[in-house]
């Protein structure tokens, strides 16, 4: 009974422990950061309650934030543990019904989400009560717990139908999510739990279609795009095909739009939402610029840094292909990096959506800063990606790149502020900086191709 559930849970927890064992300092830091965040949030609640501020965050806001976090997490978890998983092949090939196996995997995902919810919520409640805040809200707690279960059911259904040949099956859940957004009432979300369970069960009954569709995908329609290309074009085509098929370009565009809307909203109302009225005059003012900065930083992180790092990090087992071909390392690097031009296009919606809130008078600066940050992201990421080929999901590497980029962008913004004080709107400086940056990009790519070159330790073979 529940053999697959046990195996999935065991495998996931063992791989987590293995990661902790491999990088103990990093995970210690992460745990420290999580605990610190919980305490900081509790302290913020304590502080805001005591100064009796009219902070504009409602129970609904928190409810829907938690709901959507768990919804997205379930979509990803079910995809990783079922649709994409190699491990599940063994369970599916036994005499146990395949629907039952899929259900058991869903059950494992649901249990994981509930464990995460209970652990974090209890830690937060404990921390709140340590600050003397009343946490006796059992009805609300049950409401939140049911929301996590509803989100898991809907997430599972979306995950199955999104990767199925019959994508129209997503419609009921998308309509339901639309209703949640329109009505905006937690009680309504919880009352629709039976509908979510019914659709989830029905989706699990049809889950093999999605599994098989993903495992044996024929692409006869794409035949017309197959032709002999120049080396750089061939590399560009290969990289972008993979980005397209992994639906990453779509997710980049979606993330750019949401970051643009979110940063724009905080640009306008951040002061009101996040800073109590009594402190607004002293603390306000810098927040709008900070949200512009953070918006660009976040967009560049996922449309430039992630794909630029993965250009080589993902090549672990396929490096033999590039290495035995009669092509220069420079050509390999340029070909791969050219694919990032398409990724840049996915970051442009950010500019338009944030401009709805900021007005179009900042458009030139925003566009310049986005281009500058994008190139900076590539300059930092590509050599590191080449250096650590095969370390596909190295959090420490990603963390290092994000910190370096943050520092570089922070310094550049400070520099621009100083320049603007003396020269007003210095478009000529913007252009000069970009030219200089392109030169640095050239050096970075040259360095990357040098790193890619095999190192022959002895001088004997070069003599």
């Amino acid at each position: 009974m529940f053999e697959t559930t046990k195996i999935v849970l065991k495998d996931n927890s063992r791989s987590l422990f293995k990661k902790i064992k491999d990088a103990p300092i990093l995970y210690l830091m992460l745990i420290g950061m999580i605990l610190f965040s919980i305490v900081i949030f509790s302290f913020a609640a304590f502080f805001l309650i005591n100064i009796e501020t009219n902070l504009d965050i409602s129970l609904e806001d928190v409810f829907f934030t938690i709901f959507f976090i768990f919804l997205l997490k379930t979509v990803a978890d079910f995809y990783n543990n079922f649709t994409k998983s190699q491990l599940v092949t063994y369970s599916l090939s036994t005499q146990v019904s395949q629907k039952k196996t899929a259900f058991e995997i869903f059950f494992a995902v649901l249990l994981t989400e509930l464990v995460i919810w209970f652990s974090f919520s209890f830690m937060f409640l404990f921390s709140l009560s340590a600050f003397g805040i009343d946490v006796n809200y059992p009805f609300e707690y049950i409401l939140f717990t049911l929301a996590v279960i509803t989100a898991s059911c809907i997430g599972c259904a979306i995950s199955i139908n999104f990767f199925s040949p019959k994508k129209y099956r997503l419609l009921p859940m998308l309509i339901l999510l639309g209703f949640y957004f329109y009505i905006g009432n937690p009680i309504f979300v919880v009352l629709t739990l039976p509908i979510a369970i019914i659709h989830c069960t029905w989706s699990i009954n049809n889950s093999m279609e999605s599994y098989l569709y993903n495992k044996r995908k024929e692409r006869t329609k794409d035949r017309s795009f197959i032709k002999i290309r120049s080396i750089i074009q061939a590399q560009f085509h290969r990289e972008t095909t993979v980005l397209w098929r992994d639906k990453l370009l779509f997710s980049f565009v979606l993330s750019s739009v949401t970051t643009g809307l979110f940063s724009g909203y905080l640009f306008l109302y951040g002061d009101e939402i996040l800073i109590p009225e009594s402190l607004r005059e002293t603390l306000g003012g810098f927040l709008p610029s900070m949200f512009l900065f953070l918006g660009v930083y976040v967009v560049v992180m996922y449309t430039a840094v992630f794909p630029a790092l993965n250009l080589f990090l993902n090549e672990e087992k396929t490096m033999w292909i590039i290495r035995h071909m009669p092509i220069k390392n420079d050509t390999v690097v340029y070909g791969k990096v050219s694919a990032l031009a398409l990724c840049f296009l996915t970051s442009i919606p950010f500019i338009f959506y944030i401009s709805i809130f900021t007005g179009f008078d900042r458009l030139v600066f925003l566009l310049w800063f986005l281009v500058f940050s994008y190139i900076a992201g590539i300059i930092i990421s590509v050599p590191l990606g080449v250096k650590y080929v095969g370390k596909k999901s190295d959090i420490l590497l990603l963390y290092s790149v994000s910190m370096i980029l943050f520092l570089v962008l922070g310094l550049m913004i400070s520099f621009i502020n100083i320049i603007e004080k003396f020269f007003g709107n210095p478009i000529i400086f913007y252009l000069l900086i970009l030219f200089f940056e392109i030169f640095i990009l050239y050096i970075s790519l040259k360095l990357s191709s040098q790193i890619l070159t095999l190192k022959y330790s002895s001088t004997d073979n070069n003599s």
Partner: protein
Amino acid sequence: MITVNNVTKTYGKIVALNNVSFNFNDSSVIAIMGENGAGKSTLLKICTGILSFDQGHVTVDDFDIVKDSIKAREQIGYLPEMPDMYERLTGREFLFYIASLRKLENAENRIDEITKMIGINDFLDYEIGTYSKGMKQKISVTSAIMHNPKNLLLDEPVYGLDPLTSRALQDYIKKRKGTTVIATHSTQLVEQVADIVYLIMKGRVILSDKVSTLVLKYGSMEEAYFQTKDEGNV
């Protein structure tokens, strides 16, 4: 023609190849045999320029693999032991990608011809990630031979292939002109296609002889392998 002169390769403290020398001549099929970890795959990787080495010289058709690596690699076709490929590309896309990198003209006809020969043409429009081991091997074989390389390096070429394809590949190897180097454990394959065999143990060559001579002396290639291996151990 591939020349390997006094090549040494170490992985940390492990010596994979210890001052080995080979001369793989034109128009011959050379088999490299040896236990797991003897250094067969390492040798092939060094000859293709995938792996660096600590000491020695390697030339492919007189082009140094370090100094003239591009020219040297133009002369080579390579099939690795574990042919990992881009899983989200279809077989056809992958082969055209390789053909583009090799600037191959008339690739379509060549790919069509080879994929029909080894029986993968009906599956070319499926993503490689969905292929079985044998199907991946067939795509990898096609990518290795589609440019008619002067020097063909094959690491366990028939592993995972069905008997029909295995025979077709053996026929191709026997008929082709140029140098063919095969790293394998299959004594049967060696007996059927190879002219010369090298036996490697712990990074050293302990035997090099004509296959026909060894079969005559020991009765079969399998027997020759076991006997010479034991002598090498002594």
